[in-house]
């Protein structure tokens, strides 16, 4: 089944079937956060919410520590993860900074520099 492996692009996870299989529970949890009532329930007790969605220990730990790269390694898809980030008031630039290991200001500066 080698066909499942996409070409390797540095620093660029590609969400294929392999990731989809691994990440279903986590992505399902994140998808549920479209709903405001579910977001409130999640915020009340994130770990209980993770248990309800049958997250793996790896996924639960990634959610607990709010580690985006760990969530992706556990099969998370960034489109769904963005909803989890939203619960904590984090936008795409915040998670960009976290994943690239720089401050938010440094991340924004890097984007501004892409104009040149």
């Amino acid at each position: 089944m080698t066909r499942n492996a996409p070409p390797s692009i540095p620093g660029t996870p590609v969400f294929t079937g392999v990731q989809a299989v691994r990440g279903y529970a986590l992505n399902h949890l994140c998808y549920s956060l479209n709903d405001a009532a579910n977001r409130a329930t999640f915020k009340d007790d994130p770990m209980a919410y993770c248990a309800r969605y049958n997250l793996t220990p790896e996924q639960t730990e990634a959610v607990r520590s709010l580690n985006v790269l760990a969530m992706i390694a556990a099969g998370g898809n960034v489109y769904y993860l963005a909803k989890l980030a939203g619960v904590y008031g984090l936008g795409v630039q915040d998670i960009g900074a976290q994943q690239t290991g720089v401050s938010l200001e440094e991340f924004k500066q890097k984007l501004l520099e892409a104009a040149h």
Partner: protein
Amino acid sequence: MAKIVGGLATSHVPAIGKAMSEQKFQDPYWKSFFEGYEPARAWLEKTKPDIAVVFYNDHGLNFFLDNLPTFAVGAAPEYGNADEGWGLPVVAPYPGDPALSWRLIEDLVAEEFDVSTCQQMKVDHAFWIPMALLWPGAQRPVRVIPIEINTVQHPLPSAKRCFKLGQAVARSIAGWDKDLKVVVMGTGGLSHQLEGERAGFINKEFDLQCLEDIVAHPEKLTGYSNFELVELAGSQGVELLMWLAMRAAMGPEAQVVTSSYHVPISNTAAGLLVLEPKARAMAEAV
């Protein structure tokens, strides 16, 4: 008979929605970006289309991995957005045209496009932000047919397949036996990447080349595989698929009405392109 009067492609960055709701039109970060849309709105005011067929990609609002279409065509009486989890406003719904939607669906299935059909469908920022940029405020002067293209879960449809879809949509529109002016839209792009250690990746050189090639040499772009597009334009740069479907609907030759490019908007290189099919322009010149 129905007629395609033009095509519009624009980025759909969520931050644009926030800036619009906060009226940041004169803010230094936003001013030149928003100014870029003025010629597009002027063209729409002159052209007055009746219908907008909108290629866009859902980001996990309406569709989940339990039933994820490659192509989904809306057939709802209206399309509302909804909170996506991070605080964008809920806007007035967009009126649909179910009879035209079904006509389009029948033509597409007859041409062996295996579309999903949606009689109820929430549209996310990728739909309503472009609409709000082009028709600001609560006015809803066009009826819409959303066509959703999967960019969430690989395998995505190829650039070639999306181009063929756009061509088939144009053939269907040409057969609608009502006197309607139709614009075709594509939303998303240009280069950007949200995830991984390469988050924040932007490829200005590739984008500017795209803005040229999509007009005169779309076949150069449809030659890319989706993994090549991810490498060149970033994970979310594959949203170029929507632009290609729009471009295909313009026919063999198109001409630019207006175009703009702005780096960065949030994490994204934002582009705008308005096209007219060339045959139309020539016919009018005569």
